[in-house]
């Protein structure tokens, strides 16, 4: 395909094939099921979930929702970290995935916030009170107020600025969305001075968002790590562990998303190739190794020196009720790291193997999020209460799957409205 003959439509914008329609319809249907499930909970209260009080009632007051708050916000790590790598370290091979990574950040942050709302007994009050009476002393402040007001806002600004050039280029062609592109470009004309200014602003913004990224994921870890009376949670390793696992799941997610974009938009294949996946694979592998190391130290510390209840929890994780999740996660993560190592040692990376790594690390991340929240609540009592049980109901599962589908739906629709892969440096028409 010659440069001259290329139209921006080739990047997938406005091209609705049967596959796209089918995917949209299926995703939308799942979202509707999730919304119906949520309406049950909104009307009847959280009695429709499997959540119950711990202690005498023998349940877990936090479960699937909080696990997925952690998971979704973890996935958001991808966008800004990749943007920062590209801007600060000038790793150009990752450039084609920056837009979808930033989009993933925004979408997953919003899904994380929705999961928080799903967990709240008074969601409408939550939206106002979390800001009106915000207490930075509460670690929860970081997971909602800071993430929404700071991290998400900064990411949106970054996303907007980074997209202005493409919006200008798209606005040059007649289309039904020309007005939208013109609005997004907002007077941007891609002159040398404008480009330099954007480059500088994006760089500074990336530098500014990096500490926000570490803060947001750390405070999420601190939600658990600061609970002195909760065996299995109280640990200085929680915050760094959350940051690292967020990186693993976020980068793994980008690998899967990039492969999907290649599949849906054949023209993107020449842009997103093995060099991009190789880098994603290396970063995922290294962070995965760090996380395996953290897990080892965590289990060793609690199992060797922890008090009785702490040791009981370690036993439950390694051999008891929660062992399938624990070992499932460990095996998935170890397999991913092994896949990365094998490719690295051979010096040949394959897209399929990196995508497999991405799927494996996300299975590991979900498993880990489930066992970080529940076991300490059902089995972590320091008083002689009976052990608890937590089994999620269809409502919780439907809401979470609905949220995932909502995220996929937004990304799919966005990719039809705007180039999900940044356009080539040299514009054509």
């Amino acid at each position, binding site marked *: 395909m010659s440069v001259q003959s290329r139209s921006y439509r080739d990047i997938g914008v406005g091209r609705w094939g049967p596959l796209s329609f089918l995917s949209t319809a299926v995703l939308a249907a799942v979202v509707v099921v999730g919304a119906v499930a949520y309406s049950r909970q909104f009307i*009847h*209260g*959280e*009695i429709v979930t499997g*959540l*119950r*009080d*711990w*202690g*005498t*009632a*023998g*349940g877990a*007051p*936090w479960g699937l929702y909080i696990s997925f708050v952690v998971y979704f916000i973890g996935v958001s790590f991808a966008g800004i970290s990749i943007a920062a790598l590209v801007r600060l370290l000038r790793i150009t091979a990752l450039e084609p995935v920056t837009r979808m990574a930033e989009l993933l950040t925004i979408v997953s942050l919003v899904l994380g916030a929705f999961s*928080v709302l799903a*967990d*709240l*007994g*008074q*969601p409408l*009050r*939550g939206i106002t*009170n*979390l800001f*009106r*009476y*915000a*207490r930075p*002393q*509460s*670690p*929860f*402040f970081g997971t*909602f*107020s800071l993430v929404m007001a700071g991290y998400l806002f900064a990411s949106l600004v970054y996303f907007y600025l980074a997209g202005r050039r493409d919006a200008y280029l798209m606005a040059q062609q007649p289309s039904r969305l020309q007005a939208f592109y013109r609005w997004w470009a907002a007077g941007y004309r891609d002159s040398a001075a404008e480009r330099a200014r954007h480059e500088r602003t994006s760089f500074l913004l990336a530098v500014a968002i990096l500490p926000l990224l570490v803060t947001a994921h750390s405070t999420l870890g601190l*939600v658990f790590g*600061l*609970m*002195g*009376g*909760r065996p299995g949670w109280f640990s200085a390793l929680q915050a760094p562990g959350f940051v690292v696992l967020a990186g693993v799941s976020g980068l793994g997610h980008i690998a899967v998303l990039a492969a999907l974009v290649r599949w849906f938009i054949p023209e993107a294949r020449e842009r997103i190739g093995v060099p991009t996946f190789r880098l994603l694979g290396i970063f995922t592998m290294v962070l995965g190794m760090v996380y395996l190391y953290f897990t080892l130290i965590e289990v060793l510390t609690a199992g060797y020196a922890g008090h*009785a*209840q702490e040791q009981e929890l370690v036993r439950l994780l390694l051999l008891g009720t929660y062992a399938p999740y624990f070992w499932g996660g460990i095996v998935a993560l170890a397999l991913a790291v092994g896949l990365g190592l094998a490719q690295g040692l051979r010096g040949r990376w394959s897209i399929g193997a990196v995508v497999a790594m991405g799927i494996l690390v996300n299975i590991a991340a979900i498993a880990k999020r489930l066992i970080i929240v529940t076991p300490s*609540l059902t089995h972590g*009592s*320091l*008083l*002689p*209460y*009976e052990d608890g049980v937590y089994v999620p109901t269809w409502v919780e599962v439907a809401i979470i799957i609905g949220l995932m589908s909502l995220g996929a739906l937004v990304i799919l629709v966005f990719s039809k409205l705007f180039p999900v892969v940044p356009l080539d440096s040299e514009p054509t028409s």
Partner: protein
Amino acid sequence: MPKYAMTIDLSRCMGCRACMVACKVENNTPEGQFWMYVFRLEEGEFPETRLTFLPRPCQHCDNAPCVKVCPVGARYKREDGLVLTDFQRCIGCRYCEVACPYGVNYFHWQSPKKGQYLKWGDDAEVRERAEREVPPWHNPDHDKRYGEERRLTAGAVHYKGVMGKCTFCVHRVEKGLEPACVANCPVRVFEFGDLEDPNSSVSHKLREATRFRLLEDVGTEPRVYYLNGQPPTGEHRQLDAVKGGKGE
């Protein structure tokens, strides 16, 4: 400003759980929720077994983990030491519940189907027998605002989706009455009063008895003192665990 505290004399407690019943009736807590709970504990192997009882109200900690983690300041500590929940500000995130090591928080998972008060007005037979003397089924004291802050803190279930827990019966304390559990104990296990006042019953008790506070090494600084007994250990097994409904 008084400094309220409670003493629980374990050498007197016989595990009758009258305090639990009194609490439920006073605060109209939903089924399966126990703002006051009494552990019946067993240790040792037969025939060398020993029974002990351990009442567990909210500990009204000075360094309360629930107050620290509340993202909106709905859970707060009053100057007189009571740790209370503002039902109008609570967003129902249950962070207080997971932060508390004592398990004293109970969430209102739904609007209650079964209150502890009889719904006199709804029952035709009761209405007929009581003729016009129909008492209110809802304690109006629960709807009043207490303390300098004038916040809605007393009793259970004002709204679904908010947290509830022992209030030391703030609506009674403000009238100069004792909490319901204290007033209803048949053998005077509990004392409630002002630590600042050297002549108060709690001050007297604390001077004369050996004492401990629950989970002292977690650093919560409880305002509930246990007298003449030992803290529970890993050797204790619970007998007659009360579960009831699941917050219905």
